[in-house]
């Protein structure tokens, strides 16, 4: 039914403000970055200019971006994001189930506790994690109290992955919770009544029916992880730059916005690829979607 044809005025009224906002603050800046990614710094009086560009003059930025350093950094980002996403899923799935099957009077409180980290700034949460993991931090103090050996995980890969999981776990729990809550529990009862074991019921009934939530959770965690730079910047050591750090560096210290723009677009294409894979998976699971 084409409601919009019957209520044209209402439709366009509803559309205008949001569309205008998206156009002005999303499409226009991204368009500018897209142009910039094909630009080079202008030569003024025989010197490379600091501020002026030759627009649409080159594809050198994309050629440079295919250099081995950037592929390594992109590869790192994909690998660590994948690990963080899997850890999130393993932690979040039982957690979401537990919340769903908790007593109704507890459920709002448990959900609130899950959402609570959202209210605290990412930077503050990361600094808090530093306080826990640092050499004389709370973790080592606690280990020392029980006469256990000290750890030295801050400024390393495990700290970065821990940080990513810590920050993005709620993004995994919430979509899982919403699908598990909608799950018709009588299917589970039927499966068990008909003699299927608990594991069999999980693999054949529960998991397929909650798959849309799993996929949404994976997307919601994996994509922001891929572009993150703050976590690796603050918790990482000398071997922990991800592609996001390289992009930040190009827009900051290196003052090479055209190259930074090209790297950003490559990361965006990687993201589109992930979404494409998701669309294929959704089609295979016969249109079930969260």
């Amino acid at each position, binding site marked *: 039914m084409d409601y919009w044809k019957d209520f044209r005025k209402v439709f366009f009224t509803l559309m205008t403000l949001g569309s205008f906002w998206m156009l002005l603050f999303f499409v226009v800046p991204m368009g500018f970055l897209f142009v910039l990614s094909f630009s080079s*710094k202008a030569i003024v009086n025989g*010197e*490379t*200019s*600091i*501020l002026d560009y030759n627009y649409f003059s080159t594809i050198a930025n994309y050629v*440079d971006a295919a*250099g*081995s*350093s*950037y592929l*390594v*950094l992109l590869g*790192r980002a994909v690998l660590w994001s994948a690990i963080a996403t899997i850890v999130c899923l393993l932690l979040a799935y039982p957690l979401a189930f537990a919340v769903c099957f908790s007593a109704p009077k507890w459920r709002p409180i448990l959900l609130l506790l899950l959402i609570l980290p959202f209210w605290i700034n990412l930077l503050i949460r990361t600094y808090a994690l530093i306080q826990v993991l*640092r*050499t*004389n931090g709370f973790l080592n103090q606690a280990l020392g109290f029980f006469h256990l050996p000290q750890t*030295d995980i*801050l*400024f390393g890969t495990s700290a970065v992955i821990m940080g990513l999981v810590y920050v993005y776990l709620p993004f995994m729990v919430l979509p899982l919770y919403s699908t598990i809550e909608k799950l018709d529990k009588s299917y589970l009862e039927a499966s068990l009544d008909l003699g299927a074991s608990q594991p069999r019921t999980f693999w054949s009934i529960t998991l397929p029916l909650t798959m849309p939530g799993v996929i949404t959770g994976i997307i919601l965690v994996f994509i922001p992880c891929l572009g993150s730079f703050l976590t690796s*910047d603050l918790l*990482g*050591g*000398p*071997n922990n*730059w991800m592609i996001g*750090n*390289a992009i930040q*560096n*190009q*827009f*900051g*210290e*290196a*003052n*090479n916005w055209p190259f930074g723009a090209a790297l950003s677009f490559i990361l965006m294409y990687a993201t589109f690829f992930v979404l494409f894979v998701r669309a294929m998976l959704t089609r295979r699971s016969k249109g079930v979607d969260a």
Partner: protein
Amino acid sequence: MNNIKSNRRQLLKGAGAAMVGITLMPYKSMAAEEKKLNVYNWDTYIGETTLADFNAATGIDAKMDLFGSNDELFAKLKAGNPGYDVIVPSSNYIERMVKANMLMPIDHAKVPNIANLDKQFQDADFDPGRKYSLAYMWGTFGIGYRKSKAKATPDSWHLLLDDPTYAGRISIQGTAEFGFGIALKTLGYNWNSTDATELGKAKDLLIASKKNIKIFAKDNGQDLLASGDVDVCAEYSGDIVQVMKADTTNDLGYVIPKEGSNRWQDTVAIAAGAPHPENAHAFLNFILDGQNNANIVKTIGYATPNAAGRALMDDEYKNNKNIFPSDEQLAMCDPGKYLGEDATKYRDELWTAIQAA
């Protein structure tokens, strides 16, 4: 319907009035500058009462915003001055900012207290005649260390790069400028080298050093040292002097490595398009006054280029070798320079390769 039309007309009228207001504003501020000043400065880099004292002396209400690095300052002004009058860039950014038309020439006649500056700070290679920048504070770059964890004074860059003594307990400033600077000095080259062979060797050295280095720090090496996360760090002299002052156990030290290092100067300048240039000149003159300068130094503890200000300080400050190194040591320290956009880009490619190695 009528109603809507008249509303639209009113809206247009209002917009027109706003437009006239916007175009008139510059004329108005030219006539008589409002008693306001916007300062953009580093954190913990001004006297406790400086802004209040300035207000008491001139009636000008000074507000201060903080930046964390020269890049942040540069990026902010690159998009157009958002309203800052006085800014505090480091010397190696002056040339770059002048080329990018970010600075306003300083009228020396309005800043008579320039005479208080040491002679060597009255002129500079990076700003001939000091047309755009006046010296604010200066210092060196070196190694901060924890005495109880060091066998001997760690007076060599080798200990931070290719010597296992402090493996896993080292932080180095994580920018291309300082990473390459340290590696180049270790190899006996100039801090500002743009020679591809020399930079290639420096890159190899830095890649090899990654197994010893715990972290490429931001401007927080001194905090990592104070909290015990690292035992040696490459940092600015002033930052180490600040944590040494705060450390009651007297367990921290600072040394300029024997291979030489870098010396830097922070400057005060007036941003192009500053809304209150008259007040900005008054502020520069105010902080260059001997007593006011000494008050700033008492809070921040950096080396002041201001002779009148230094004369008012106690001997403990004046004779502090960490703040004022010997002439021989300073001769080994290269001033950081603006290398041009192409050389900066080349260094940055190598820096990314080091990170990805």
